[in-house]
């Protein structure tokens, strides 16, 4: 009995084919948004996807996928992830599910965060997944180190870096790129988010957060440029409601942008 338990516990990530970190360095550039949209795009492409939300202070994923406040169950292998759909194609784990009150502030110092993330990585029974996306908080701290250390036993395919085009963002993302190089995490590519705003009234494009910064950063650092996603109020509104933007607005340029990024990502993972 004991041996069986150890065998089960050995591989909670055993049947996860690919692990992709979504990083930035800068806050508020759209890591959770891009993670959510990539997950949805991959599911529409028939893949089984998991999202591990290690942003302990600001868990956004449960809200973006409208999974509410479900109870987290345990099984022999550990925690059972919460499924966003009845077909169980999208599995999620986030501290948001473990909080009594959604307004509760998680004011923890490093060691406590590190411990919980360790559990999130090894003790969630993900089962069979094509891709596990890991949504991270901004910065390069305890959470990031904890995730990498715990994933070392498994394998990290690489990281997708999200930035907005402006200089204050690309500056922080440059630091994150150096972090990836130092920790031997492959950079799968850079996504430039909030790249240009098209006025719904007159279609004039305004570069509120500048434009091209992400693409330049990719060139500068020799990374792959995955694509730009425009600043779309419809996308923001969908996420507020926990709606599937890709299903609701398949004709938008944002849909095209996200689908292309997802396809490029899949090709580089399967290569």
């Amino acid at each position, binding site marked *: 009995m004991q041996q069986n338990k150890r065998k089960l516990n050995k591989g909670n990530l055993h049947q996860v084919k690919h692990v992709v970190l979504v990083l930035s*360095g*800068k*806050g*508020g*550039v759209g890591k*959770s948004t891009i993670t959510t949209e990539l997950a949805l795009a991959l599911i529409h492409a028939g893949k089984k996807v998991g999202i591990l939300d290690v942003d302990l*202070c*600001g868990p*956004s994923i449960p*809200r973006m996928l409208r999974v509410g406040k479900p*109870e*987290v*169950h*345990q*099984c*022999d292998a550990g925690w*059972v992830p919460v499924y966003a759909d009845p077909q169980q194609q999208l599995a999620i784990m986030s501290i948001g599910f473990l909080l*009594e009150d*959604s*307004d*509760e*502030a*998680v*004011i*923890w*110092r*490093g*060691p406590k*965060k*590190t411990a919980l993330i360790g559990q999130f990585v090894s003790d969630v029974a993900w089962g069979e997944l094509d891709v596990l996306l890991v949504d991270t*908080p*901004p*910065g*390069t*701290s*305890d959470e*990031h180190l904890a995730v990498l250390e715990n994933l070392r036993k498994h394998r990290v395919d690489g990281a997708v870096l999200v930035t*907005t085009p*402006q*200089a*204050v*963002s690309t*500056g922080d993302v*440059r*630091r994150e790129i*150096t*972090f990836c190089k*130092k920790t031997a995490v492959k950079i799968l590519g850079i996504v430039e988010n909030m790249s240009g*705003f098209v*006025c*719904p*009234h*007159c279609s*004039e494009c*305004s570069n*509120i957060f*500048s434009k091209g910064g992400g693409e330049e950063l990719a060139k500068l650092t020799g990374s792959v440029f995955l694509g730009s996603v425009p*600043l779309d*109020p419809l996308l923001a509104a969908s996420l*507020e409601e926990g709606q599937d933007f890709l299903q609701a607005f398949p004709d938008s340029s944002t849909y095209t942008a996200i689908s292309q990024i997802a396809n490029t990502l899949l090709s580089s993972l399967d290569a």
Partner: protein
Amino acid sequence: MMYRCVTQRNYSLDCAGERALQERQRQHMARGLPKQKPIAGVKEVIVVASGKGGVGKSTTAVNLALGLMANDQSKSVGLLDADVYGPSVPKLMNLKGNPELTDKNLMRPLVNFGIPCMSMGFLVEEVAPIVWRGLMVMSAIEKLVRQVDWGNLDYLVIDMPPGTGDVQLSITQNIPIAGAVIVSTPQDIALLDARRGAEMFRKVNVPVLGLVQNMSVFQCPKCNHQTHIFGLDGAKELAQTLGVEMLGDIPLHLNIRETSDKGQPVVVSSPDSPEAEAYRRVAAAVVRRLAEHLR
């Protein structure tokens, strides 16, 4: 596989018992906390925080500091960038270089537009990541706060990093803070975190001066059509719910981003613009709230 239901609370406490427990915990915690020590020469410390990343804390902190000086030329204002992992102040204030040391081995803050500034960004290379765990960050914050020759300041504005972790705890536990300004965009997803930020300040007994709603509305430069890209008035509603004041409403304007990227904050580079006016109004509201709180 056997599934077992594990809920967060495996026991139930009656109300009175729970209150007694919380009181005991509070007393126990109060004994063990570090003593707050004011920063030498600094009269009032204002923190600019949010909980959520990317809502404009640094932009607001920089323009608030400049706004405080613009409203009252006799006041001296300093700016501390406590975002150790993503220090934005050097870029926003167009400052670079390693700080000099005084005779007393204190770091001399770098000055621009009349504001002495200190940031981790001055101490490391531009592309170097700060891959530090909590303990090292605490020690760095201590240095950035105490080992700087601030001189005599009426206000020290501290730009906080996103989140509710080590940095926030270290600062609020070690320094007496006159008040906190919470910045948020109107989006629910940002407000969720702003709420947590406000909750954190309540727990550590830091008065919340009010909320700033940033990126509230975008006006198309061509047709003047207004789009509420990140939602409408969400922060105003949150302020009402939390019982705190709205300190101001800052629109989403290309000028703010352009001047920020150039290191020429909008309050000094376009002082007559509506955006600069909005920041000066926030500064005036902050001063008023500080005075109210002292009373």
